[in-house]
């Protein structure tokens, strides 16, 4: 009897713990916007981001977006927060949770499209930013990139570097957003090596380095000696394969030369997601934030290439520069879809 009494006491104690936790809630729930009414000094707006299922540490897209927020964080003296999603169904509540406590919520990736539409309508007085998809709402700033232009440049580099005359492309999911990379890359390769063979494979996922490695090794076995990837975290596997078998990998989204232990990243196609997220925060702090769709290409320095491993020879760089100029002044229009690629006529400069 004594024993069951003791048990009961423990249960009551536990319950009070739960109750204590739940009862305190009204007070913090009511405080998400304490920043607005502060007098004289302009209050710093808070901001945070929600990652897709790839999460931080993908050495790619999410990390790049986070870098932009951290930069803005140091500049404006606000610590950014991050919420990493584990399931696609969580995008919506995660965006909602974030916007309850932050003034600006950034969602990274085109998979956020539907969730962003729903949540931005639910919190009309909050600001939202989304990268890689266009959401038409008065409180959402959408940033798109002309990845095909950046991919074109690394395609030129790949075409000038290959010795076997075979290059590879490893994509994530076969979607128009990724086919943009493929089209630009192929156009770039064909511009400098019209007879080159280009192997195309899609892993079907973005978050599985093993699959990336598997596909890259298969392409290597088919004589590819330069492989460009646009496959999120799968690319880590592509670069590992390059280390193992001693061929060149080309990184994507940000400078990925650090992933390779043997300096086998030839170059990286840079997509300045960090510039995008930084711009969102800056315009929010300036008070110039508005709902709009911004497209960043070579001209706007939103895309480009980097050579973190110092592997691109100077003469290759000069050629790349020529193409870059031609794209910026409109002499070359880089194809952004497979259909446009078919109509594309390679011009040698």
């Amino acid at each position: 009897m004594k024993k069951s009494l003791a048990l009961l006491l423990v249960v009551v104690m536990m319950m009070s713990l739960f109750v204590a936790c739940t009862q305190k809630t009204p007070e913090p729930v009511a405080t998400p916007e304490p920043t607005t009414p502060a007098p004289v000094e302009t209050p710093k707006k808070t901001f945070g981001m929600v990652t897709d299922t790839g999460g931080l540490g993908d050495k790619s897209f999410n990390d790049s977006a986070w870098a932009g927020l951290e930069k803005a964080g140091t500049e404006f003296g606000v610590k950014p927060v991050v919420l990493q999603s584990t399931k696609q169904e969580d995008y919506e509540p995660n965006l909602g949770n974030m916007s309850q406590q932050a003034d600006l919520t950034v969602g990274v990736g085109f998979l956020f499209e539907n969730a962003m539409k729903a949540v931005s309508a639910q919190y009309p007085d909050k600001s939202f930013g989304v990268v890689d998809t266009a959401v038409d709402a008065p409180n959402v700033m959408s940033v798109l990139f002309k990845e095909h232009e950046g991919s074109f440049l690394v395609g030129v580099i790949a075409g000038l570097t290959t010795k076997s005359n075979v290059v590879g492309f490893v994509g994530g999911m076969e979607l128009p957003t990724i086919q943009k990379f493929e089209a630009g890359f192929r156009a770039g390769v064909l511009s400098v090596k019209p007879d080159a063979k280009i192997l195309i494979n899609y892993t079907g996922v973005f978050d599985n380095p093993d699959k990336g490695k598997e596909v890259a090794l298969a392409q290597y076995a088919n004589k590819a000696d330069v492989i460009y990837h646009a496959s999120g975290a799968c690319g880590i596997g592509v670069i590992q394969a390059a280390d193992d078998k001693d061929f060149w990998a080309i990184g994507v989204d940000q400078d990925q030369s650090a992933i390779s232990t043997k300096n086998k990243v030839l170059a990286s196609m840079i997509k300045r997601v960090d510039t995008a997220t930084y711009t969102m925060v800056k315009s929010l702090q300036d008070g110039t934030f508005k709902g709009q769709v911004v497209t960043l290409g070579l001209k706007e320095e939103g895309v480009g290439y980097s050579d973190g491993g110092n592997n691109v020879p100077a003469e290759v760089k000069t050629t790349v520069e020529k193409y870059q100029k031609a794209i910026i002044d409109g002499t070359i229009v880089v194809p952004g879809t497979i259909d446009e690629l078919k109509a594309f006529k390679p011009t040698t400069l």
Partner: protein
Amino acid sequence: MENRTSEFKIRMQKNTKAIAYPLIAILLSFIVGGIIVAAFGNDPINAYKAMFKGSLGSWSNFGETLVSVTPLILTGLAVAFAFRCGLFNIGAEGQFIIGAISSVWAGWAFTGLPAIIHIPIVLLVGAFAGGIWGGIVGWLKAKFGSHEVINSIMMNYIAMYLSNFIVMNLMNEPDKAFSFAIADTAKLYRFAESITIFKGSRVHIGIVIALIVAVFAYYLLNKTVRGYEVRAVGFNPHAAEYGGINVPHNVVFAMFVSGMFAGLAGAIMVTGVQFRANNLFGFTGYGFDGIAVALVGNNHPIGVILSAFLFGVLQKGGPMMQLQGVPKEVVGIIQGIIILFVAVNFVKVLIENYTEKKNSKKSIAKGEVK
């Protein structure tokens, strides 16, 4: 009369224990988890506060918790039901996926129906498709004696890639990584539509359906001849067969019902939350979580409801710990610890060992022979 009251007392005691032990385990796991959070340099009190605030702190957060509890109850029931028949249904994941994709089709294909007819059709199509998917595994076991674990794992992969193929090719929303949406008449009622306190959460009538299904599962298992047969096969198939029970028949039946529960979970996720099917990067995890939910809930329908709730709180509250600066990985560790503590059931063993020792000492002192 005397007998009945003492029997009642014993049952009450058993029930208190069944609830008290897991609660003590949860409390202890929170303490251990707190130490880990502190070791990673975060404030454990703040972290837990954030977790409970995020999952139970407001009506809308509570609603979102229920959104994740709903499929967990059903996949938990799926695993538990098969388990009672001695079958380990790892395939709830695949049955969930098949249920989801079929209900997207049913939600889109039938148009012009009123919601009151359309919704049951969609849910039944999802449940039935899941049932078939599970039933195949049961049939393979009954007919060829092949092990249901291997088969259901393989069926998971088939389900996922089949679903992805359908999403990307047959029911694709152009240029997107998801299928087209279901008709409005196939969407489940969301509480936020008329109850303002739930505003901002997607909680829907599916939670009520899940609870009803749990009661139905309890009834089916414990109050019907069919349920008795299923349990008999689970206890000892040879004895059951000797007793005149058709074992293969019950194996197929149990896997079919199990698959129906998981398929219904998928259908409810589609009609209540997503309204479409996504191209899956990997398994969604509802089916696999269902295994843990069932085991923690002791394979009892009511236990499944409670443990699904625990899982839901952890799933919804976990991300809020991230907002307090606790890394995602640490959140995962803590969730694992809590579940481990409950699942291991060590509190029961410790307490019962302790009381047994005390009792035996007592009886020795009294000179009784045990």
